[in-house]
């Protein structure tokens, strides 16, 4: 069982209350499979030429935790709001279970949403905030009270039920927003950057708690964030969007191990993957003084240059003259290991993802006990079993 200790000050919420043995009735009264399907769903804002969400196709399984992630303006929030019914769908369809909800009002979709700024009703007490949806649905008062109290117990809000949102801390407000969603036992939870208003420490704690709460309740959840760490740690699957187009939808592990394109490769993982544009050579690609072996058929689609991606932890520091020569700019000591930020001595070699004004450094993780000095020259090469090769033109993945 997933348990956390009740820690009222920092906003921990136990998922299971040992003393009373209660937890929320999950999906009471609707046993339909709450799958969610985006079918070519498109949103074009009036006055824009390009769609903000362009023919999005995602199938979300019942009970799955899907994270929509991407840089700001990528269409992730718009996608979520289309699912909520807050945004019109200009093309395609959206399904919840076997219902086509494309043209339904938000109120008829049986979804609950946690907003970035929580959107608590300022004039209502915590209990009234949590019970508002049930009250509108005409659930009787005793039942509302019961469900609100159960949710409050889970979220450790019992003592705050009579307070107004104004009198709560940020973490408590966040939990009320969560409570408002779970009290309803909806078919789908929607969460729009619900942690972005918390401080760093609370954010880390809360993200684990939300993830485990979701697993316990088993409610299909779509979660939007711009933070790839949040995406990696929380999601069963992650969907990466850019400019309204879905880049990849996969499990965190798949996403990390085989990103579908240069964008995903650079977006997922911290520090980011090194992406170096290198020429194709006979039997592989040229990486500094080395030729890295790459299967011929992988390179078939590419041109004379390809992009090689290697994560900092997959970089091997070799002997002098072995691989790519770097000048060490900065060393970040983390104790067990250290990150080395360097610039290729050969000016011709540029790293992808930087721009003209800012040269993107090459990052390598090294043993914390054998750290190069600043200004020193080192030679690096990728661990060839964890190397990614991308088409320089399209950015698509070439290696398998």
């Amino acid at each position, binding site marked *: 069982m997933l348990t956390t200790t009740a820690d009222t000050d920092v906003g921990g919420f136990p998922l299971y209350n040992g003393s009373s043995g209660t937890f929320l009735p999950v999906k009471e009264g609707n046993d339909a499979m709450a799958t969610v399907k985006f079918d070519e769903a498109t949103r074009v804002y009036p006055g824009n030429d390009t769609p903000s969400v362009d023919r999005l196709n995602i199938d979300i399984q019942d009970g799955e935790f899907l994270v929509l992630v991407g840089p700001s303006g990528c269409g992730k929030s718009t996608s979520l709001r289309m699912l909520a019914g807050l945004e019109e769908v200009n093309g395609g369809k959206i399904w919840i279970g076997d219902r086509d909800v494309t043209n339904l009002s938000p109120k008829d979709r049986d979804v609950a949403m946690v907003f970035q700024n929580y959107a608590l009703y*300022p*004039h209502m007490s915590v209990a009234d905030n949590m019970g508002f949806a049930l009250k509108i649905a005409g659930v009787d008062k005793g039942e509302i009270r019961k469900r609100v109290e159960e949710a409050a117990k889970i979220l450790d809000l019992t003592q705050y039920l009579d307070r107004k949102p104004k009198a709560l801390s940020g973490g408590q407000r966040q939990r009320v927003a969560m409570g408002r969603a779970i009290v309803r036992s909806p078919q789908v939870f929607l969460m729009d950057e619900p942690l972005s*208003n918390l401080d760093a420490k609370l954010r880390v704690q809360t993200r684990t708690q939300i993830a485990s709460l979701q697993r316990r309740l088993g409610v299909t959840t779509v979660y939007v964030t711009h933070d790839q760490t949040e995406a990696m740690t929380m999601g069963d699957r992650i969907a990466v969007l850019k400019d309204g187009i879905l880049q990849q939808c996969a499990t965190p592990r798949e996403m990390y191990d085989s990103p579908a394109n240069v964008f995903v490769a650079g977006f997922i993982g911290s520090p980011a993957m090194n992406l170096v544009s290198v020429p194709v050579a006979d039997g592989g690609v040229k990486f500094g003084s080395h030729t890295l072996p790459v299967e011929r058929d992988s390179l078939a689609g590419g041109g004379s240059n390809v992009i090689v991606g290697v994560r900092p932890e997959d970089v091997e520091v070799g002997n002098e003259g072995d691989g790519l020569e770097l000048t060490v700019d900065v060393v970040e000591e983390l104790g067990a290991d250290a990150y080395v930020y360097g610039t290729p001595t050969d000016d011709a070699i540029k790293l992808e993802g930087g721009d003209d004004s800012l040269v993107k450094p090459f990052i390598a993780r090294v043993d914390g006990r054998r750290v190069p000095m600043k200004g020193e020259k080192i030679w690096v090469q990728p661990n060839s079993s964890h190397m990614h090769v991308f088409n320089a033109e399209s950015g698509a993945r070439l290696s398998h």
Partner: protein
Amino acid sequence: MSTLQPAATPESVSDEVIAPRTKVKKPKKSAAGDAAGALNSRWASFVAVVIAVLWTTPTVGLLVTSFRSQIDINKSGWWNAFANPGAFTLDNYRQALEPGSSASFTQYFINTIVITVPAVLLPIFLASLAAYAFAWMPFPGRNVLFVAVFALQIVPLQIALIPLLDIYTNKLGFGASYWSVWISHTIFALPLATFLIHNFMRELPGELMEAARVDGAGHVTIFFKILLPLLTPAIAAFGIFQFLWVWNDLLVSLIFLGGTPEVAPVTVRVAELAGTRGSAWYLLSAGAFISMIVPVIVFLALQRFFVRGLLAGGLKG
């Protein structure tokens, strides 16, 4: 996506909404204080007192007069009254309030109340409904209509009076009835009321309305359960402004109701007396204060809202 603070409280929202300028911090010394300090501060106080005295004396004069007998008023100036405090009397008020007498203001006073209450409630109803549509409900033609309503604020009510009078008398058969003034005051209040309440509503974070919609609320529920409670202070500020406007109005009542005791408000009666019995100061002074007492009480009791209402409604007319 809204960048407004989460969980804005009704108080904070409406405070900021209505009168950002009245939010007062208390620094130790202000720019104005500094300027005043430049004048000799004794001179500053002196000038302030002179202005205050100039501003209050006329009112005090009439107030004192209203407590003097008819004979005393015409025999000597009110400043002489303090020499003989025993001569103060309530006779003028007694006469002005005595039911049935031709000099009575009671009927007119009641007319004022009957005119004012619906003429305050109705525009608030209609304007907040329209403001909600303009603020949070997309519908075709919304922007054009809103700009039109906004622009109508500058139309002086004089320009509509005579054709309206014609509509009321000849088309609707109202004649000199309260309905004419209720509806007229509503019409004249609508552009400003809609605009102001719309602005208050736009200040609320959109997430609130979205949260309510996802919670299953339709527009009618959102309007009553979310917007009205949150905007009560803002709407009250407008309501008080409208209350004073209608209570103190002369022109609209004069044109649509005339001077009959059946329907005319107290302002019309006092103005009429000033014309026909301009030297009947015992009656005029008492009548004037009877007409003022309610707005002055409202002013003293709700000063905070009152100031806000004026700040918000300053452009009306």
